[in-house]
């Protein structure tokens, strides 16, 4: 009796199951590749340069915008700027009205587009009037407003504002007055929700001797804002995947828990781990994004990071515990608790906590000020680097630990293998069951990890070219995301199903003939001699068995 479904499944059934899972995996991949558009799009907006209104430096109710019937932008051309001795410093506003019109239509942001990230590119020309330094600090006064369709044309409402400093790295091949600097892009804002229809960004570049602001920057001829938003189509496909997997995983978990409780024993650690893993996946699957269609949820970026973090932490812990539980070495009956794994899990916890703290420092603060970036200040970037390095070290320690444990399990397996023929039939089958289970998970995990890594590398390689050589038939980046997402769902669902306790004990006890009929299909036949229902977990069983040896 006992064991999991995996051991008691016939080769044929297992083949059918595995091929079904692989097929659904392929479907997930193709859904992303064929139906979904790219995960995100970019719209590059060129700043309209307007003349500033007096008193705007401390009045955040002044909004300058260039399009619309009541547009109040007094456009300044480059020629006018060049004619001015001081390049009209402190008199200019760089205005971005998002999104841009297309096909004669005034487009608006859809709530399906989820989030918005802004990156600034500067066109800076050499200016004989100012001191030009290639590496300097840029101070920007940025103000963001929003408006909805039903609002009046000039009904811009305050969203956020900040005076931010950003490092500016430029290269100039030719230091003549006719040349422009090649400057790096500057990330300027990240918004976790795209709740409103229109956004307006007013950027001022204040020049001030007293506060040492923007004194060594050349002549800013243009500002380009690249806005990255998630594609609505991708969100829709993603949400439909989530909505499909969510009930499926919940159903599988309920079935699993029900089955565990049918046994007259307390669930073992591995079963707890499986249910925790299922729960963290369910949390990840929970289609919370539907709520963003109705409510403004600025914390969605942070939340999705946290959800992913919890899931990865759980997955890593599961692998550790799984390897530990299949050690085949028995240290009395203490196995059934997480406590003995605290040393192993410490790495996972440290890594996750440090990444969480980093995320809180970056995206947490962005809830209040979307222009904030931890990387700007020297102190902040040191802290951020500390967290990230800590995370990386814990990841490395974890990985080494895991490899060590897996290696130990394999050592034990080979030791046990050599003595297998001398064992009694019953014990041999038990050991074979454990080895089989372990190898199956190893294989599946390695396959999943390998596919993810290959997909990621492929994505990185093709990413650099897709803009001009894109294959229309398969959107690889989307296919990668849906494929990986589907893969881990399927992986965990199949783990929960296959590692659920088998029900094959009942026919054994009651009906001997039925067992004989099925005997041909069963790979690891049941053990009729064992009738202790409280010791169904083969693991605990082995603990005792080897202890007796």
């Amino acid at each position, binding site marked *: 009796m006992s064991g999991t479904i995996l051991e008691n499944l016939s080769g044929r059934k297992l083949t059918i199951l595995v091929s079904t899972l692989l097929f659904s995996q392929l479907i997930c991949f193709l859904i992303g590749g064929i139906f979904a558009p790219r995960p995100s799009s970019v719209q590059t907006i060129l700043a309209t340069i307007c003349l500033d209104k007096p008193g705007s430096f401390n009045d955040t109710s002044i909004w300058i915008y260039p399009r619309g019937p009541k547009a109040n932008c007094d456009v300044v051309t480059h020629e006018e700027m060049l004619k001015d001795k001081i390049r009209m410093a402190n008199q200019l506003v760089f205005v971005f009205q998002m999104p841009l019109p297309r096909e004669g239509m005034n487009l608006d942001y859809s709530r399906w587009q989820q989030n918005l990230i802004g990156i600034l590119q500067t066109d800076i020309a050499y200016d004989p009037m100012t001191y030009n330094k290639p590496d300097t600090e840029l101070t920007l006064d940025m103000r963001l407003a929003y408006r909805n369709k039903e609002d009046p044309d000039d009904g811009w409402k305050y969203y956020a504002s900040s005076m931010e400093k950003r490092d500016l790295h430029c290269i100039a091949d030719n230091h003549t007055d006719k040349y422009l600097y090649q400057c790096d892009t500057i990330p300027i804002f990240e918004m976790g929700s795209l709740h409103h229809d229109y956004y307006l960004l007013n950027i001022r570049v204040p020049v001030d001797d007293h506060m040492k602001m923007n004194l060594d920057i050349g002549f800013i001829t243009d500002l380009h804002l690249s806005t990255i938003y998630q594609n609505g189509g991708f969100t829709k496909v993603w949400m439909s995947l989530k909505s499909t997997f969510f009930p499926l995983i919940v159903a599988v978990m309920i079935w699993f828990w029900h089955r565990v409780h049918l046994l007259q024993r307390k669930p073992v650690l591995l079963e707890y781990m499986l249910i925790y893993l299922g729960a963290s996946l369910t949390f990840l699957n929970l289609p919370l994004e539907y709520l963003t269609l109705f409510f403004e949820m600025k914390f969605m970026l942070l939340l999705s990071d946290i959800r992913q973090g919890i899931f990865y932490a759980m997955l890593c812990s599961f692998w550790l515990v799984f390897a530990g539980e299949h050690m085949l070495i028995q240290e009395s009956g203490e196995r059934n608790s997480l406590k003995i794994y605290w040393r192993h899990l410490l790495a996972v916890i440290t890594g996750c906590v440090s990444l969480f703290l980093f995320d809180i420092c970056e995206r947490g603060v962005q809830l209040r000020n979307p222009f904030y970036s931890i990387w700007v200040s020297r102190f902040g970037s040191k802290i951020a680097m500390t967290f990230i390095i800590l995370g990386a070290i814990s990841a490395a320690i974890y990985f080494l630990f895991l490899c060590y444990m897996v290696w130990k399990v394999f050592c034990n397996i080979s030791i046990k293998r050599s003595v297998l023929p001398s064992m009694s039939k019953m014990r041999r089958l038990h050991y074979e069951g454990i080895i089989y289970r372990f190898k199956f998970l190893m294989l599946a995990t390695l396959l999943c990890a390998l596919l993810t890594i290959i997909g990621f590398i492929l994505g990185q390689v093709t990413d650099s070219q897709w803009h001009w*050589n894109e294959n229309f038939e398969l959107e690889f980046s989307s296919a990668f995301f849906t494929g990986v997402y589907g893969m881990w769902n399927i992986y965990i669902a199949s783990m929960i199903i296959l590692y659920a306790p088998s029900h094959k004990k009942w026919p054994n006890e009651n009906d001997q003939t039925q067992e004989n009929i099925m005997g041909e299909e069963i790979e690891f036949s049941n053990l009729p001699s064992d009738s202790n229902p409280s010791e169904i977990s083969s693991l605990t069983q082995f603990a005792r068995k080897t202890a007796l040896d």
Partner: protein
Amino acid sequence: MDMLKLFYLLIMALCAYVNADAEKQSKQNRGRGSIWWGIAKAGEPNNISPVTPTHVYMDPAIHATLRRKQRRLARENPGILAAIAKGANMAIAECQHQFRNRRWNCSTRNFLQRGKNLFGKIVDRGCRETAFIYAITSAAVTHSIARACSEGSIESCTCDWSHQNEPPQASKSESVSDVRMWEWGGCSDNIVFGYKLAREFVDTGERGRSLREKMNLHNNEAGRVHVQSEMREECKCHGMSGSCSVKTCWMRLPNFRVIGDALKDRFDAAIRVQVNNNLKNNNENQIMRNNRRNNKNLANTNSETNSVHGRGQNQRKQNRYRFSLKPYNPDHKPPMMKDLVFFEQSPGFCEKNLRLGILGTHGRQCNDTSIGVDGCDLMCCGRGYRTQEVTVVERCACTFHWCCEIKKDLKSKIILKVADNVVLKVCATISY
């Protein structure tokens, strides 16, 4: 005998007349596609207000420089005339910058009244300089339209990827689907629209079969291709905690100076071509092949959908670009897509030549230490130079204050000018 002589003379005269007429005709035809350059000086004679879209459109003088198709495009895409005017000015500035040290300095001083070519009569010759002018103006229009799209000053820029081979216009039925398109998968890059519209607008006059028209078409295309190929990729990681698990890339429109530099390099390596016997229906049709590659590159869509979309239009348009040019020197390689081509030697630019619209290098600034073209020997064509002293304002020692929280006495702006004397070398005005 006398009668015969007279008759002969008569015939000769007639021939000469016909020839002259034909020449006149062809000369008019030559600049036909390029009269729109005059848009650069829109509103300049009377110096009214800065160029606004409505102003350019209303100006009858400007309107007259446009061909019927160009007027239609301007009507259907409000805002493009302002962008094209900006582009033309950008082209002039860039051309003058690139040629500031050469005997021919891309002067537009000859442009006096409507109908005359902006760059002067040099355009009537199929020489290198003309090739550069065509390429840089076409590139500037492409660049400027793409730029205007990202500024939002042309509202009819396309969003859909698949429309790129259809004539650009705003039609109501498509707009609804475009809004859906925008929500579903975002919009295509502005360069798609810029390229397409620039081709429609700039190439519209080059309809003939002469070598000159082929040369213009090729150089126009080369200019546009340069804009597209000089675009640089920028990427941003925005995955979990800002990691590169999600990365988005886009193409950045280059500074126009970069394009000007590239085209200047092509100018120096321009290829002289001659008439190919089978001008059309040639198998090794360079441009057409390149075109197709372009289109594919441009829109990121597969070419099959495109050909389904507008096959008739496509076919006709492709025919126009279906030609190959043969190098004058058979040992040279045939011109590639990005090469500039010409078929006539450049005239000397030393002396004033009114027939060719050349101003000469009299009074030009030169550099007595340089051994290049900007050196006084070469620039002044051996006529000698004189020295001139000019006062130049060098640097402003300004104090800036942005905020009013600072004490009042600091509030006023102080601007100091530091004057400096610079010695200039200028080519002698009189050569003997």
